[in-house]
C-alpha cells in the first residue's frame, strides 16, 4: 500500500475547522448510552484547552430519529434546526458543534437544501417566526465533535500519558476506524478526507501512537439507520451488516474499534453481544470481543483519566484487555460505584468481563 496516495486525497479534502467559540448541541443516543463521552468532551475543550463552548439549556433533540423514521416531516425538522440556529445567533455564536453524526448529516442536508432552494429557507423563517417569534442566521461552519477532537489531536498528544502502544513491547496497537455514513458519504466535501479515505479518526489514532488497519469492508455501513432496526423483525438485516464488518476485520486481529457516530458505536458494541448469544461467536482474539470506543473515551484514556469516569464500563464489550495492554491502571472494585459511594447496577452478560 502506498501512503502517498492516501495523503494526496486527505490534502484534497481539507475542512475549515475553527478553533474556538462553539455552540454545542448534544446527541440523544450519546447522552443516554455514552454520557461519559459528552461530559469528557466539554471537560477537554473547556478545562484542558481553555476553549469557549456553550450549551444552551433550551436546545432540543434535532428530531433526526423521527425524521429518518418518516414520523417527522422535512419542514418540521428544518424549523427545529432553525430554532437551534436562532439560539446560537441570540448568543452570538457562528460555529455549531454537533455531537451526533445523524444530526450533523441533517444540519448539512438542511443548509444545502436552503442553498439550492432558497424558497425553503424563506418558508422556514416564516414557520419559525410564527411558532416562536425567533429569527436566525445560517451558521458559518457546521462541525462535528470528531472534527474538533481531530483539530486538537496534537494538543491531546502533547498531554498523553498512555500512548496507543503495547506498553511492554512498544508495538503500536492495531485499530479499526469506522466513520458514520452521514458524516462524509452524503457530502464528501464536509468530511475531513472525503468519502473514500476519511481521515478524521485515522489522524487521531496515528497522532496518539496507534496503527490503522485498512480491511476490505472498511467502507461498509454498520447497519444502523433508524428505519432498519425500529421493528424487531428487521433487526437481523441491521445486525448482518455489522457481522459482515466483523468477519472482514477479524483476521487482522484489531485491539479496538474507534467510531465517530453514536449509532455505529452503539451497534458495533451491542451486536457483538447479540452475535455471541445467538451464534456463539466472538471476533476478538482468544474468544474475546473487540472493544468499541468513542473518540472522547479514547482521548480520555490516552490522557490518563479514570476509565470509570469516562464510562467505558457501560459498554457491552469491556475494555480491560485493551487497558491492560496500554498499561492503564484501573480499580476493579470502583467499577460500578457512583461518585457518592452508592452502588450502581452492574450489567450482566458482558463480554471480556
Amino acid at each position, binding site marked *: 500500500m502506498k501512503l502517498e496516495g492516501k495523503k494526496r486525497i486527505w490534502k484534497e479534502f481539507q475542512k475549515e475547522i475553527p478553533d474556538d467559540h462553539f455552540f454545542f448541541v448534544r446527541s440523544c443516543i450519546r447522552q443516554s448510552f455514552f454520557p461519559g463521552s459528552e461530559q469528557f468532551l466539554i471537560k477537554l475543550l473547556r478545562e484542558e484547552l481553555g476553549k469557549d463552548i456553550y450549551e444552551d439549556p433550551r436546545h432540543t433533540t434535532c428530531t433526526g430519529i423521527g425524521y429518518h423514521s418518516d414520523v417527522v416531516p422535512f419542514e418540521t425538522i428544518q424549523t427545529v434546526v432553525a430554532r437551534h440556529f436562532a439560539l446560537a445567533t441570540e448568543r452570538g455564536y457562528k460555529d455549531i458543534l454537533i455531537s451526533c453524526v445523524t444530526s450533523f448529516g441533517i444540519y448539512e442536508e438542511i443548509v444545502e437544501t436552503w442553498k439550492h432552494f432558497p424558497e425553503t429557507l424563506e418558508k422556514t423563517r416564516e414557520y419559525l417566526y410564527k411558532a416562536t417569534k425567533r429569527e436566525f442566521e445560517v451558521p458559518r461552519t457546521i462541525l462535528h465533535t470528531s472534527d474538533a477532537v481531530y483539530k486538537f489531536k496534537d494538543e491531546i498528544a502533547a498531554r498523553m500519558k498512555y500512548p496507543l502502544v503495547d506498553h511492554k513491547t512498544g508495538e503500536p496497537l492495531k485499530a479499526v476506524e469506522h466513520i458514520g455514513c452521514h458524516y462524509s458519504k452524503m457530502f464528501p466535501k464536509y468530511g475531513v478526507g472525503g468519502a473514500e479515505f476519511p481521515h478524521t479518526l485515522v489522524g487521531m489514532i496515528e497522532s496518539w501512537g496507534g496503527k490503522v488497519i485498512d480491511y476490505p469492508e472498511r467502507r461498509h455501513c454498520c447497519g444502523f439507520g433508524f428505519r432498519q432496526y425500529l421493528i424487531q423483525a428487521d*433487526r*437481523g438485516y441491521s445486525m448482518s451488516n455489522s457481522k459482515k464488518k466483523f468477519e472482514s476485520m477479524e483476521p487482522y486481529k484489531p485491539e479496538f474499534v474507534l467510531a465517530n457516530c453514536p449509532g455505529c458505536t452503539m451497534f458495533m458494541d451491542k451486536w457483538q453481544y447479540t452475535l455471541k448469544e445467538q451464534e456463539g461467536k466472538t471476533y476478538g482474539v482468544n474468544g474475546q470481543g473487540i472493544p468499541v470506543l468513542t473518540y472522547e473515551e479514547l482521548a480520555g484514556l490516552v490522557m490518563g483519566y479514570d476509565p470509570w469516569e469516562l464510562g467505558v464500563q457501560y459498554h457491552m464489550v469491556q475494555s480491560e484487555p485493551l487497558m491492560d495492554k496500554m498499561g492503564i491502571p484501573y480499580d476493579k472494585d470502583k467499577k460500578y460505584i457512583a461518585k457518592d459511594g452508592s452502588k450502581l447496577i452492574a450489567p450482566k452478560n458482558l463480554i471480556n468481563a
Partner: protein
Amino acid sequence: MKKFGFSSIKPRVIDYDRNNRAVMEYIMENEPSFALCIGCGGCAATCSAAQFTDMSLRKLNILIKRGENDEVRRLMNKCMLCGKCTLVCPRGVNTRNVIFLTQQAFRKLDNYAV
C-alpha cells in the same frame, strides 16, 4: 438459537472465490459454444417456459458461469426442451445442449464428483 426475535441473514453476494464451478467446467468441456454467450437475452425472449414461469435461460447461463448452483438447480428443470432458443442465438450457442449437460452435470455431482 433465536432468542431475540430475529437472526442474521446469509449474504446474497456472489462470492466468486467460494463458489464451486465444476458444473460450468463440465459444460465448457462438452459444449465449447457455451463460451460465446454475451447475455443478450434473445433465448429468454423466445422461451416458451419464460412466458409463464420465472425461467430465464439468459440468467441460467450466467448463474452457471458464476457457480451459483442452488439457483441453477431450481431453474434448469423448468425448460420444456422446445428448442426455440437455439434458433435465435446470434452467437451460435447450442443452448438446448447446455440444458442437457447442466442436468447431466448435476446428476453426476449428486452421485459422485464431476
